């Protein structure tokens, strides 16, 4: 097991097998999304309060979930890279950040569009979830800015890993402080907190969407990391052999 892990982490091996894994994740992921989108849009019954507008949940919740999962991956990978000096982990962290920022943006955009018919405004300052997502987006920007400001890759990896780990503690505190703040100002949320059990016909597409998005995200992350590995290892022997080998196409 440990040996297998070690082999996986070696850049040439990872570069070779990443596309295979990526395809295995992508195809079922797309199938799940296709089912979830169809069932969510046409088969699930309309919500008794929000009507058909509630169907936005099928893209909003997966995006919000991925925005946080990408952050956790970024921080954990940074920590692994910092403690065990594993180069592949830093490549994963560097690749997770822009993807996470995209999904955070998507969660904010869909939340805002959902808010327009529900709240009557594009942006409700007192909604704690939207505020947490916005601060998360700022944090992604800071992380990426720090990375790009340091020219030395090894140094950028370690500095941004420290920032990501500090940020994990911060994200939790932001969550609770924003909730407290919103309770002072009568915050309004679109989604009921936990709420009564969802109709299975509504819940099934949602779970399919969340699972499908996670798989597609994994596929994107693997391929982004693969390119990052290739770029970082551009001066090594195995890359040279790969390029000069006749069948070594991209």
């Amino acid at each position: 097991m440990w040996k297998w892990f070690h082999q996986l982490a070696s850049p040439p091996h990872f570069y070779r097998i990443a596309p295979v894994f990526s395809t295995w994740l992508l195809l079922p992921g797309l199938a799940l999304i296709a089912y979830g989108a169809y069932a969510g849009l046409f088969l699930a019954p309309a919500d008794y309060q929000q009507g058909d507008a509630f169907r936005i949940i099928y893209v909003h919740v997966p995006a919000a979930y991925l925005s946080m999962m990408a952050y956790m991956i970024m921080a954990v990978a940074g920590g692994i890279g910092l403690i065990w000096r594993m180069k592949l982990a830093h490549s994963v962290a560097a690749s997770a950040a822009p993807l996470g920022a995209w999904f955070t943006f998507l969660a904010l955009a869909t939340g805002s569009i959902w808010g327009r018919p529900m709240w009557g405004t594009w942006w409700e300052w007192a909604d704690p979830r939207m505020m947490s997502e916005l601060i998360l987006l700022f944090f992604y920007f800071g992380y990426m800015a720090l990375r790009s400001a340091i020219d030395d890759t090894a140094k950028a990896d370690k500095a941004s890993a420290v920032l990501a780990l500090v940020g994990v503690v911060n994200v939790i505190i932001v969550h609770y402080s924003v909730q407290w703040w919103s309770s002072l100002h009568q915050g309004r949320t679109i989604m009921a907190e936990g709420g009564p059990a969802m109709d299975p016909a509504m819940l099934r597409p949602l779970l399919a969407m969340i699972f499908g998005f996670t798989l597609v995200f994994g596929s994107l992350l693997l391929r982004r990391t693969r390119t990052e590995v290739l770029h970082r290892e551009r001066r090594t022997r195995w890359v040279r052999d790969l390029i000069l080998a006749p069948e070594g196409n991209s």
Partner: protein
Amino acid sequence: MEGVAMGGYAPYVWTCFGLTLLVLIINEWRIRVRHTSVYRDIEVRIKALEGHE
């Protein structure tokens, strides 16, 4: 088709789903473009270093 009308919420619902599709496509496309450009850069440099072929 009444399903497409989304009970009057069609602009909101379809914009959200369209935006999601767009974000997925942009990310997929960016990954491909970046991989090609990184690969080409390395190829050009290594072929120049080898000086032949």
